[in-house]
């Protein structure tokens, strides 16, 4: 199909508009983080100003940035690794050995994501408290694993569905048991898909705030909690808050930048195969 020139111009304008609208708050946040507190609240907002690194130094004095980064890394990568390991066999079974309940099961798995998290805050809080998992990385890893599991199972299921069942059957005839099928056939063929699922899960748990804020205090506090610590007592100091936020998103932004090729390849797996 060949779209008309006017249509293509409109579509690209729309695309650029949407991208700018989404990028603007982030850009403004980064810009603000380099302003003095006085410049930050000036009306009308200043586009040109004397940049300063003052906010970044202060943020590092007031909070334990390195500790928060470490917690975020351990929690997001740890929970993602565990969730993928759990989701692989589940998605494999549902994709290649479906039965009449598979569709219902999939919907049920997804439906757990439809419930607002706050609905189970109390029971989860109490469980964590009585098992001593409050404010521990272990506790948060467990929660993140479970919270992302439905999405991960769904994504892996979709990627596995793309692989012709004949190929799996051929490998069974060739003498591959369940583990060998996953290792030698499924992993290489669905590799990009698995990688992009993992990336998405890391990003989701990196930015997750609800559980981090409610279940951590000091020891296991990840970056999301680190920012919040600046917003409450120092809520009026926009420049410092912006600096803290910029520091929080920077690692995952760099990570996402480095892996974007992989991510795009995985997400368009079916289309380009």
């Amino acid at each position: 199909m060949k779209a008309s020139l006017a249509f293509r111009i409109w579509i690209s304008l729309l695309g650029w508009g949407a991208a700018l609208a989404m990028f603007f708050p982030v850009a403004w946040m980064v810009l603000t983080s380099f302003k003095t507190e006085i410049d930050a609240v000036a009306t009308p907002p200043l586009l040109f100003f004397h940049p300063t690194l003052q906010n970044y130094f202060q943020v590092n004095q007031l909070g334990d940035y390195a500790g928060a980064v470490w917690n975020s890394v351990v929690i997001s990568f740890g929970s993602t690794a565990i969730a993928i390991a759990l989701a692989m066999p589940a998605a494999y079974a549902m994709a290649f050995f479906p039965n009449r309940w598979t569709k219902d099961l999939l919907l049920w798995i997804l439906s757990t994501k439809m419930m607002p998290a706050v609905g189970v805050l109390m029971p989860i809080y109490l469980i964590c408290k009585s098992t001593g998992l409050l404010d521990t990385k272990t506790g948060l890893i467990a929660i993140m694993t479970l919270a992302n599991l439905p999405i991960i199972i769904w994504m892996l299921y979709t990627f596995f569905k793309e692989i012709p069942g004949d190929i799996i059957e051929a490998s069974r005839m060739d003498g591959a048991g369940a583990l060998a099928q996953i290792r030698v056939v499924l992993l290489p063929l669905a590799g990009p898909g698995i990688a992009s699922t993992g990336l998405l899960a890391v990003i989701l748990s990196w930015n997750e705030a609800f559980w981090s804020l409610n279940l951590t205090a000091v020891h296991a506090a990840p970056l999301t909690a680190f920012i919040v610590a600046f917003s409450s007592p120092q809520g009026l100091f926009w420049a410092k808050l912006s600096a803290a936020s910029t520091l929080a998103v920077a690692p995952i932004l760099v990570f996402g930048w480095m892996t974007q090729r992989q991510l795009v390849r995985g997400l368009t797996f079916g289309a380009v195969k």
Partner: protein
Amino acid sequence: MSTLEIKQLRKSYGSAEIIKGIDLKIEDREFVVFVGPSGCGKSTLLRMIAGLEEISGGELLIDGVRMNEITPDRRGLAMVFQSYALYPHMTVAGNMAFALRLAGVPKAEREQRVRVAAKTLQLEALLDRKPANLSGGQRQRVAIGRAIVRQPKAFLFDEPLSNLDAALRVQTRLEIAKLHRDLQATMIYVTHDQIEAMTLADRIVVFNAGRIEQVGTPLELYHNPANLFVAGFIGSPKMNLIGAVVRARTAQALELVLDGGSVVSVQPGDAAPGAKLTVGLRPEHIVVDPQGPISGHVEAVERLGNESIAYVSIGASLPLTVKLPPQSPVALGENLRLALNGHAVSLFGEDGHALGWTRPQAGG
């Protein structure tokens, strides 16, 4: 190399029974072809033998050992899929060596066996290519090579030629026949194409709706079809099947009135005067004869060069298909008289079964 025995094998999906109790014994080194119309359950049966489909009832024995509960990776069979199902991330050599690698065969032996198979199938120049860079025919040969390398107990083929173009299909058919002779292996081959079945099989198993209609050598099925289904399925052009009533019976002949009124006499069969029958006439067993007992007029003529096929209306519901010599001067609309050549007919009772079909047919 092994024997394979199926006893009262059944398969149901929910309440739908797809395979309805099949008994079959396949001998060592035999080439058996399952043939039947699409949807009759051939693939399902083959996949049950392979272990890819669970067995709902009955028993499968390989070399006398019950296999029902054995997973496919431990049955020692190799399968060639209709879609080829090559591993897209491995080279041709990698595809062929895959099973050996899983089985822990040392690298040197693996390479040796792949080389031998590649040589047989003329794949030597392609060993480092990925399946995406092969033609359909080459992929087909790799799929066969992957099976050969394993030296399996038996080969299972599921419509392996149906994705190839006509010329390549004939060539590959010949190669598979040669492979069977060279390897001396047990092979089970599924197809809906009766020509493939006739040309390849030691024995053909004709399926219809989840049951076996007849088992026999290609010529047995051709000359002595057990029932109307096999009669109509085996042979091209198809056997003519015409309704008839027995008028008289003598020691030498049975006199039949065909639909449309022509009277023919054939060798005696197991039928009493007044009985309704179906007469099966092969197109090549009908000849033009000015004194012949059947009269009709020509509705269509197909000239194929090596032969001509005439469709002659004799007043029955379907025209009679007649195979004629290429230069036969038959013209469209012409009135013709036809005769039966050597009384070679098959007779079927009202239940569709052949009358005394085990007897050898004279002039066949």
